[in-house]
């Protein structure tokens, strides 16, 4: 099967999931981060219901530590496509005393997002949130269902997942419970990039090699910025880098790269010897089960 046919199969599977879940639930939303996975997911969601308008809003959890390029990209996309955008702010959760900001070097708002996300789902009555998660990202994600149940506290219980057979999805919920649905479950990082190329999708400039002020920490490079405090032993220097994932600035590392266009990025991903999260996400380096622990609490 050619790469084209493979992408078509993944595309058809994702569209089936999107239509099925939207048909079964009252109030869906799509979690949008301006990262490549959520860009692909949004594109598929539009295709699934075209030529009708997207029948649900997109939800962005704004950590206050976003890359400016990602925010600019989001706003331009929302304006161009005429989307309904909900912004859930971690800053506001901090101001309201819902969460406490971490301090010092190594501080991250990654984990705080969970509270903000769950608050926003509750406030807007959202009963299913589509996410761009993929099973090849992480061992815990590899275990998760396409349509994944969350209890009234937003928790994922990996030991009590609903059996999912024959592409049939049990979307039944009680009040206060919700679902997360992952139409890109069976895409790999390479599939996502090949899809971006096939569909000529714009992605933030962060994904392509550019020169940037960075500093080194724990074997990774971070963007130097006001929102990340550095130790005296962490001098800033300039380097040619790109980002393989786009998350919170405080926990998303860059990789040295000369891949300035899509073909070069695809070549680089094909030849990569580290997973994208292993290469660039400090949040997953904390423990063996960092992702599982966050997911249990209700993370993306």
């Amino acid at each position: 099967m050619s790469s084209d046919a493979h992408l078509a199969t993944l595309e058809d599977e994702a569209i089936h999931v999107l239509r099925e879940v939207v048909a079964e639930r009252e109030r869906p939303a799509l979690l949008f981060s301006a990262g490549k996975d959520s860009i692909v997911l949004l594109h598929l969601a539009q295709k699934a219901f075209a030529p009708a308008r997207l029948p649900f809003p997109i939800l962005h959890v704004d950590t206050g530590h976003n890359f400016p390029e990602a925010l600019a990209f989001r706003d331009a996309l929302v304006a161009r496509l005429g989307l309904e955008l909900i912004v859930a702010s971690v800053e506001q959760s901090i101001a309201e005393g819902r969460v406490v900001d971490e301090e010092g070097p190594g501080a991250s708002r990654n984990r705080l997002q969970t509270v903000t996300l769950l608050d926003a789902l509750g406030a807007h009555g959202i009963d299913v949130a589509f996410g761009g998660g993929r099973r090849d990202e992480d061992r815990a994600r590899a275990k998760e269902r396409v349509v994944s149940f969350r209890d009234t506290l937003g928790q994922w219980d990996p030991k009590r997942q609903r059996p999912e057979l024959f592409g049939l999805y049990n979307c039944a919920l009680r009040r206060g419970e919700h679902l997360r649905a992952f139409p890109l479950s069976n895409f790999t990082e390479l599939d996502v990039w090949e899809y971006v190329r096939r569909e000529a999708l714009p992605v933030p400039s962060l994904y392509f090699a550019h020169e940037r002020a960075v500093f080194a920490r724990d074997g990774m490079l971070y963007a130097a910025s006001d929102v990340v405090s550095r130790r005296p032993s962490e001098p800033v220097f300039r380097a040619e880098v790109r980002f393989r994932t786009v998350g919170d600035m405080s926990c998303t590392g860059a990789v040295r790269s000369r891949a300035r266009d899509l073909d070069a990025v695809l070549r680089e991903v094909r030849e990569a010897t580290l997973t994208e999260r292993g290469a660039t996400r400090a949040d997953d380096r904390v423990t063996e089960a960092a992702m599982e622990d966050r997911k249990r609490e209700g993370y993306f």
Partner: protein
Amino acid sequence: MQDADTRPPVEATDTLAPLRVATAGSVDDGKSTLIGRLLYDCRALLSDQLAQVERASRRRGLGHADLALVTDGLRAEREQGITIDVAFRYFATARRRFVLADAPGHVEYTRNMAVAASQADAAVVLVDVRHGVVEQTRRHLTLARLLGVPTVVVAVNKMDRVGFSLEAFARVRDEATRFSAALERSLAGPEGRGSPAASSGPGPVALHVLPLSALDGDNVVTPSPRLPWYDGPALLALLEELPVADALVASGDGARLAVQWVIRPQSDAHPDYRGYAGRVAAGVLAAGDAVTILPSGVRSVVRALDTARGPVARAPAGTSVVVHLAGDVDASRGDWITTGRAPLERAQVTADLAWLGDRPLAARGRYLLKHGARTVPVRFAPELARYDIATGRLAPPGPLALTKNELALVGLEVGAPLPVEPASTRAVRGFLLLDPATHDTVAAGLLRG
């Protein structure tokens, strides 16, 4: 393993459809090790994943990298050294892409094996050659076939522990073959109740039995000099050649599509647009086809087909489409668009199912059946026949009782007639049973007749 970080993953330059493989086996049969081996030898493990495995192995006091830790991704799994839920992994050889669903072996988590089997083109069931075919092996063989997996590979593992003995292998092979033959007779219809339609598709199983050692890699990716008496393919070479499930279903019965969603923009640009969105479940739907909508029986013609890749003339099974029908036709979510010979519609059906719920079947319970894009109330017939895991035979019909992990042939009275096509795809035959009180998915299976 030291050179892992210099070896890029293999890129698929394949021409075959990807194969979905479910792996199963009893606890400690070496299944996770086999998968780790396949992923490692196909260079689908990247160096940080391998480093993670090595760190975790050291922390557990192991002298070698325990490849089982690659797929056992949950905290509880790593603590106990068992697989609890299915892990999906992707890898490729130069010939083919694979989606590997690593299923639990422990009896407590059999329902997660059902998840893996329900979409698999082939099931690989691991057997420890020293223990032979045990209850859990028979359970997995039965479950895989009952859920419509057309090809079963029995991988007789740990051959290194019996000196690569042909006699030891042959004993397991003969046991598996005997059991499988009995099972096929049960799935083809019980004596005294068999009607012409009461056979379970898609056809009898293709059974392959092969010897290997996952730990050392014998006969996994490459043939082993330690198995001179074995002249078949290594496991990976076999998997590269297996057919996908839907290719084994004759499409003579025409196309089937369950309407998921009606697209009606009602916008200035598209004031009269009405399209029926769904995924082709069997056969090929083509522009110009005469169609019958079920259950209404209304007839129409396919005016056009849209996909995510633009308009098409033909849409084979698996394609997500929007169907445009000629004339003013009424169809809604849950209806079936069909071509060719119309399927039988029945309100009394028989079905093979696996009970997955923690709570036993309640004889007077109310359940919902989810099939295609429709959910309907259902009531059990007063008797059912259990699959006897020890023999592969159907027990005589008995009272209505089922507990977790039991498999049975049941009768169901359905709140609305369902199309029943025993020889069709799992997208047409598959169903879930939901408990409306707890919202749990309590059973799953295939409509039989």
